[in-house]
């Protein structure tokens, strides 16, 4: 996060309530990125019942792919994003096949440790391939801002793009999960894998699809994140990864609207804390709020518990 903190806030502000509004919008922008990443954690947790701690590092790989596509090969932004999505989706499915699938019957602790191992593997691989010195990412929408209220307030275009992207993803994904056959299969696997098998659902395939979707979203998040905080380095994914994981727990892990609400709240709380309380303390405040929420509602804001009837 140290890297992110050093960056100037992408909103220029003049005037009291306008200042608050600007901080709020920047917070929503940051929160939207957390929400998109949180989806990956939440869906994988919901269906495979595991915490994929390598998810943050998939973001990092996506960032490098987009960086090379944009800066070295001068591809258009859309092509760079699509390429990053393709690479991350493949990587996500590959990680699941090679590292997690053989451990389907193992204890959750073994899977967790494996995930941490995959995370370090990806970070070290990036360091070896691309060195640890940060690369400067050029924003896909430039550094322009939208000016409002006779110049009293300006919002960076990347913020607007991030928020819109997040909303579109949430809507499309919710429709997909609720209304398609694959979506139904995913929810069935999430609830009871053996019962899903008895329906003829291929549980392994369903888990692969979940990893593919989560990793594809990580690629989108990486481009949005690096367009806001423009440096690419091997441990880039760790902090946003942990924050997004927190957001997922905050909103209720396993729930898609939960990831959305959790991500947004986390981004807003973090940004307002930075603005009004203390930059150094902002993370502590975020986690303090998380602890309070979990004390009051252990399943997270939108997490549900269905009692079993015998």
């Amino acid at each position, binding site marked *: 996060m140290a890297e992110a903190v050093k960056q100037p806030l992408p909103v220029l502000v003049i005037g009291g309530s306008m200042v608050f509004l600007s901080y709020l919008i920047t917070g929503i922008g940051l929160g939207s990125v957390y929400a998109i990443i949180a989806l990956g954690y939440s869906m994988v947790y919901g269906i495979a019942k595991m915490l994929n701690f390598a998810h943050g590092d998939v973001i990092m790989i996506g960032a490098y792919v987009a960086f090379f596509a944009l800066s070295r090969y001068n591809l258009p932004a859309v092509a760079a994003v699509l390429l990053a999505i393709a690479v991350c989706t493949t990587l996500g499915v590959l990680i699941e096949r090679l590292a997690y699938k053989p451990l389907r019957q193992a204890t959750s602790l073994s899977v967790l440790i494996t995930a941490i191992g995959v995370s370090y593997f990806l970070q070290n691989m990036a360091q070896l391939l691309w060195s640890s010195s940060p690369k400067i990412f050029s924003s896909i929408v430039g550094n322009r801002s939208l000016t409002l209220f006779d110049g009293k307030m300006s919002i960076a275009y990347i913020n607007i793009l991030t928020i819109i992207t997040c909303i579109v993803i949430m809507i499309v994904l919710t429709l997909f999960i609720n209304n398609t056959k694959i979506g*139904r*299969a995913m929810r069935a696997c999430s609830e009871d894998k053996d*019962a*899903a*098998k008895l*329906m003829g659902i291929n549980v392994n395939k369903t888990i692969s699809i979940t990893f593919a979707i989560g990793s594809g979203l990580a690629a989108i998040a990486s481009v949005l994140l690096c367009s806001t905080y423009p440096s690419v380095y091997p441990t880039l994914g760790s902090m946003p990864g942990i924050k997004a994981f927190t957001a997922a727990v905050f909103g209720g892990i396993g729930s898609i609207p939960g990831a959305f609400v959790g991500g947004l709240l986390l981004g807003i709380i973090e940004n307002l804390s930075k603005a009004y309380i203390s930059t150094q303390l902002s993370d502590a405040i975020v986690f303090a709020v998380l602890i309070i929420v979990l004390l009051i509602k252990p399943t997270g804001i939108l997490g549900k518990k*269905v009692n079993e*009837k015998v």
Partner: protein
Amino acid sequence: MLEIKDLSVSYGMIEAVKGVNITIKDGEICTLIGANGAGKTTIMHTISGLLTPKSGQIFLDGEDLLKMDSEEIVKRGVIQVPEGRRIFQKMSVYENILLGAYQRKDSYDDEFEYIYSLFPILKERTSQLAGTLSGGEQQMLAIARALMAKPKIMLLDEPSMGLAPLLVRNIFDIIKTINSTGTTIFLVEQNASMALAIANHAYVMETGRIALEGSGEELSASEKVQKLYLGG
């Protein structure tokens, strides 16, 4: 139609099923009764491909089911209504029914009509979350869900569990109705009297082995069964 040959299944060191032979004929109701922990559910899970046995064979019309995964087994029309119903509680009644037809590529409108005629209550509750149904309604949903797959053979694991006597009778009548349309039934039960009353053929299982075998009437009349399972 379904032939289980010398089946042994273990959980680690514990052998739950020890060399079991069961033959289920086309169109009949075959029942397997026995006390809790006798290994009945283990056999059911093995047929559906949820468990891999230590040894033995399971044939469906000559095809070896043990070479297939659960998805393939469902495609062959071997459909299980599992113990404890295992309906998807967080999904609607309608979605549960749809999931039953997951492997179907053809139209299943007829099955919809059929299950709503068998269980009119489910039609009233299509949009309700399945977890909010009563125990009896959940059992009906579990059976309806299985019927959507157009089963050749339906495996029912303790459908009477936890239900009031009147509902048990109701469920058994429905099992008979389903059987009368040509679906073979393999019924696992602890409620021996009800199961034996509708079964063409029956097996009694004790600690992993088949102890007795015969027609439903024969076993109902057997002194041993009366003493151990029918409270006589």
